[in-house]
């Protein structure tokens, strides 16, 4: 596997082409966070429905590179129907993994595991984390829009 193949794993490209949970809903109960990376134009909106301490639903929308868009899809599939704390914890492990910091390898990251290669491309870490940041923002409480 060369450097490019290591970054653009099949699973990533698959999520990019066929994103899960895509499209926002018009529902006041959702928390929404919209982040634009002004340096490159990556633009992600995450909507989260939290009820009874659980992440009931995650929706996303946006435009950007394959790493950014796919990771929103991967995130939604991975964290939906998790307790808020667990979702938060997994998200932190993911962000640590792609930014080359130590993380809890016992956590099952499933498809998100494919972003391992990102840490070799420091310029792309932002792309791989922006959706996750937006997700964490939606847990923060207030709707920021």
């Amino acid at each position, binding site marked *: 596997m060369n450097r490019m193949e290591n970054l653009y794993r099949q699973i990533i490209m698959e999520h990019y082409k066929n994103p899960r949970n895509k499209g926002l809903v018009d529902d006041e109960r959702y928390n929404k966070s919209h982040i634009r990376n002004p340096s490159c134009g990556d633009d992600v909106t995450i909507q989260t429905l939290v009820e009874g301490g659980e992440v009931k639903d995650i929706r996303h929308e946006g435009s950007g590179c394959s*790493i950014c868009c796919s990771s929103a899809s991967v995130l939604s599939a991975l964290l939906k129907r998790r307790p808020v704390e667990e979702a938060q914890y997994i998200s932190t492990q993911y962000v640590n993994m792609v930014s080359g910091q130590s993380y809890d390898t016992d956590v099952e990251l499933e498809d998100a595991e494919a972003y391992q290669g990102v840490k070799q491309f420091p310029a792309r870490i932002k792309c791989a984390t922006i959706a996750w940041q937006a997700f964490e923002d939606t847990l923060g409480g207030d709707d920021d829009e």
Partner: protein
Amino acid sequence: MDLDFDIRADFPVLDDETLVYLDTAATSLTPHRVLHKMNDYYRKYSANVHRGVYRLSHEATELYNDARRTVARLINAEEDEVVFTRGASNALNMVARMLAPYIQEGDEIITSELEHHSHFLPWQRIAKERGAKLIFVPLDQNGRIQLQAFKNVLSPRTRVVALTHVSNVMGYLTPIEKITELAHAHGAYVSVDAAQSVPHMEVDVKRIDCDFLAFSAHKMLGPTGFGILYGKRKHLDAFEPVEFGGDMVGIAEKDTLTYQKPPLKFETGTPPIAEAIGFAEAIDYLEEKGLETIREHEKRLAEYAHKALSGLEDVVIYNKDADAGIITFNLKGVHPHDVVTVLDDDNIALRAGHHCAQLVMQWLSVAATLRASFYLYNTRDDIDRLIESLKRARDFFKDAGL
């Protein structure tokens, strides 16, 4: 003179022979000479300017004043019309601040969708503050500012015309002389963003006759943290300073203040001394190579690159008829970020993004583009390498199913 040889040796970053640097429109490389000159200041004179009566300070002041003369000569301005700033963005903001008090409710400010954020947003702000209207010159189908379109939006209410000289995305040259003439006939001030023109062509402020013009040192072989505001002397005399403090003062008392004459009136605090001195050296270097020679060189490269890119399937070029060495394009179906990562893997430095010009991105209906920009140190070989790498990117993402 042909530039295709030896020049690279002047640029330390290019010691890495595998590097292809195609991002000059963002910032240029810096030649040894400029670094030496700045080091000299820190090593020999290191002293504040204007204020010291001792030798070191006097020598620093002389070099610093020479730098102003060099800049004035470059753009055919008078010395006292050259204000040292932190960069083009800073300079363009100063213009907006200086003119703000003269803008009335209902006045019109003409600008364009080609503007860099640093020339459009200050006016968006002033328009809001003063109740004025921002008017956009409609671009033609290629994205150009045509004189006729400008005439159509010019009105007796036009107070300011704020336009770019060369667009940092489309590489188009604005017909700024004629625009200025018309604007002045309507009593409007003209502010020109020359960040992408002065580094690449001979610019003569007297011929353009604009009221203000701005550019940055770091885009023309000079240091970061430095730029120029040109302003007509009569305006610099008439307008209020933007900042207040050391060096711009004549006599300061508890409740009164007199100003120094321009340009000092607009330069508060210890100035960017090393930067000014380094920038003058960059200008000397560019003038030795010849700005017109450099422009020819870039033109030839741009033609070569256009031809090569056009021959590549799946490439969309957005500015086929650019006047400057800037090519803005995309690989169909692949986000520019993804492309750039492959190019970077081949050690090719290219910009992907909106290039601080979101309005023209909206006009082009794209979120982001690739942009290759050329300067005197680029070669045909650089372009061949770019093409090869783009092919690799295309094939790679095709295989990945895009």
